[in-house]
C-alpha cells in the first residue's frame, strides 16, 4: 500500500502538561514574595518523588532566571533527602509524605506545592487540580503565610481559594 509508511508520530502529551506546570511555577516566583534572605544565591526548586515535571524545569533552568537568581533543580527521593529550597513540589506518588515534608521544612520559607485532591487543606500552599479539562491551582494563603511567604492579590484572583 502506497501510504503504509505514513503513520504519524504521537506527540508527548506528558511533556505538554509538564510545560504548563513549569510556566505556573515560574509565575509563582513573580507573584509570591520570599523573605530578603531568599533573594540571593540560587533559586532552588526541589522535587519530591519522580515526576515528568523535572525535565521541563531543567529546561526552564537553562533559559530563565528569577531576577538575578539562577534556577537549580534538586530531586529528592525521600523526605530525609530534602534540603533547603524555595519551592518544594511534592509529586502525586509522594502525597503520603507531605506532612513529614512540611514538618521538616518548618522555620524555612518554602512554597510547598502539591498535586492531589484536598492537599491545599492539608498543608500545601499551592495545589494543582484540573477543572473542566484545564490545569488550575488552589491557593491556601494561610499555609503560605506559615512559611513567611506573601502572596500577591493578583495571584489570588486567578486561584481557587481554599481558605
Amino acid at each position, binding site marked *: 500500500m502506497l*501510504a503504509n509508511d505514513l503513520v504519524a508520530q504521537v506527540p508527548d502529551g506528558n511533556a505538554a502538561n509538564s510545560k504548563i506546570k513549569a510556566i505556573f511555577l515560574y509565575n509563582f516566583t513573580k507573584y509570591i514574595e520570599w523573605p530578603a534572605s531568599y533573594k540571593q544565591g540560587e533559586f532552588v526548586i526541589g522535587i519530591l518523588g519522580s515526576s515528568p515535571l523535572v525535565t521541563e524545569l531543567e529546561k526552564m533552568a537553562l533559559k530563565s532566571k528569577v531576577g538575578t537568581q539562577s534556577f537549580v533543580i534538586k530531586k529528592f527521593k525521600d523526605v530525609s533527602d530534602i534540603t533547603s529550597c524555595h519551592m518544594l513540589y511534592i509529586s502525586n506518588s509522594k502525597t503520603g509524605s507531605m506532612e513529614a515534608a512540611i514538618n521538616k521544612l518548618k522555620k524555612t520559607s518554602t512554597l510547598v506545592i502539591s498535586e492531589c485532591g484536598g492537599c491545599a487543606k492539608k498543608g500545601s500552599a499551592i495545589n494543582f487540580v484540573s477543572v473542566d*479539562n*484545564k490545569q488550575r491551582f488552589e491557593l491556601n494563603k494561610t499555609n503560605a503565610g506559615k512559611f513567611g511567604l506573601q502572596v500577591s492579590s493578583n495571584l489570588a484572583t486567578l486561584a481557587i481559594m481554599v481558605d
Partner: protein
Amino acid sequence: MLLGFFVQGYAQQPKITEAYTFLQKNDLDNAVKAIETATSSPETANEPKAWYYKGFIYKEVYKRKESTIDDSPARQKSLDALSKCISFDPKNQFAEESRKVVKYLSSTFKNDGAKALNNRVYDKSIKNYENYLQTLKLFNPNYTDTSAIFFIGYAAYETKDYNKALVNLKKAMELNYNDPHLYYILSRVYLDKKENDNAIKVLELGQKKYPNDKDILTAEVIYYKETGKIDELEAKLKKSIALEPKNTELQMMLALVYEKKMEAAKDNTKKGEFQTKATDTYHKVLGINPNHLQANYNLAILYYNEAVTKIQQSDFETDILVLSNLQDECILIFKKSLPFMEKAYSLDPKNKNTLTGLSGIYFSLNDEEKSNKYKAELDALNLK
C-alpha cells in the same frame, strides 16, 4: 494422424515404419527404440524424416510422461531432433511440419515460465522464458516475443540480477513492448541501482506514452517520495488525484506532503496554510471512506500535535493570564482531535499507536482516569 501421410511414401525404410507402428499402438518405449536405431543407422541418419519422426515421438513422450517435469529430457531430445530435421531438409519436405511441433514445444516453455513467475520462482521462470525464446528462433529466426523479454527482465529484477534485468527491459522497450509496467519496473531497477536520473527519465518516457496511466503516475509519486522531491511529488499527486479523485491512498500521500511542508515552513502563517491543506485533505479521505483508519488517526494526531506544539513553544515566562487563554485554546483543539482518535480506536482497538494517542489526548485533557484506562490496554498489549 498427420504422421501417416509421410510414412506411406517411405515404407522401404523398416525402422522408421516400425517406429510409426509402435507410435500408433501407443507403445512409446518401442517407438523410441526403433527411431533411435533409425537415426543412428548410416542408412537413415541423414534422412530428414527420421529426425522429424524422432522429434515427433519424443514430443509425445514429453506430452504423456514428462509434461510436469522441469527440464524434461524428452522435450529437449524432441527439439534437438527437430532442429536437425530443419537443418537437413533443403527440399522442405519435413521442415514445415517440424516447425509446427517446435511451435507447440516452445509454447510449453512459455507456459512453464508464466507459471513459475506467478509462483514467484523467478530463476525457473527466467530459464523457461529463455528456452521459449530460443525455440522460437527455430520456428522463425525473425520472430521474437517481447512479452517474454519483459518477463525475463522483470524476473531478473526480482532476483536482483540488475544487469540481466536492464538488458531485457531495455530490449523490450526498443521493441515497443506495449505495457506501462515496463517503465515502472525499469525505473525500479534504476532506483535500486541508485541511478535516480535514469529512473525519472524512464518514468517520463512512460508517462509520455501512457499519459493517463495510474501505475506510471504512482511510480513517479514513489520516485519523488523516495528522492525527497516534495514539490514534484505534490504536483504529481495532484495530477494523479485528478485522474482518480476517489483514490484515498493518493489523498493520504498528498496530506502527508502538506504535513512535511508544514514542518519545513519557517513562519507560522505558512505552517498554518499547510496545516489547513493537510486537514482538508484528511477530511476528503474521510468523506470518501469514514472508516479509513489511518486518515482518522493522522487527523487526530495533526490536531493533537497542533495543541502540544502551541504549549511547547510557549516561553516559560508566559504570563499566567496568557497561559489560561492558551489552555482554553488548546483544550478545544484536543477535543477536536479526540473523536478521530476514538474512531481509529473503534476500527482497530489493538493498535498501539492509537492507544498511545488516546492515552495522551486524555492526559492532555487532564482526564487521568481515561488516560490510564488506555495506557493499561497498551501495557497489556506490550506484555504479550
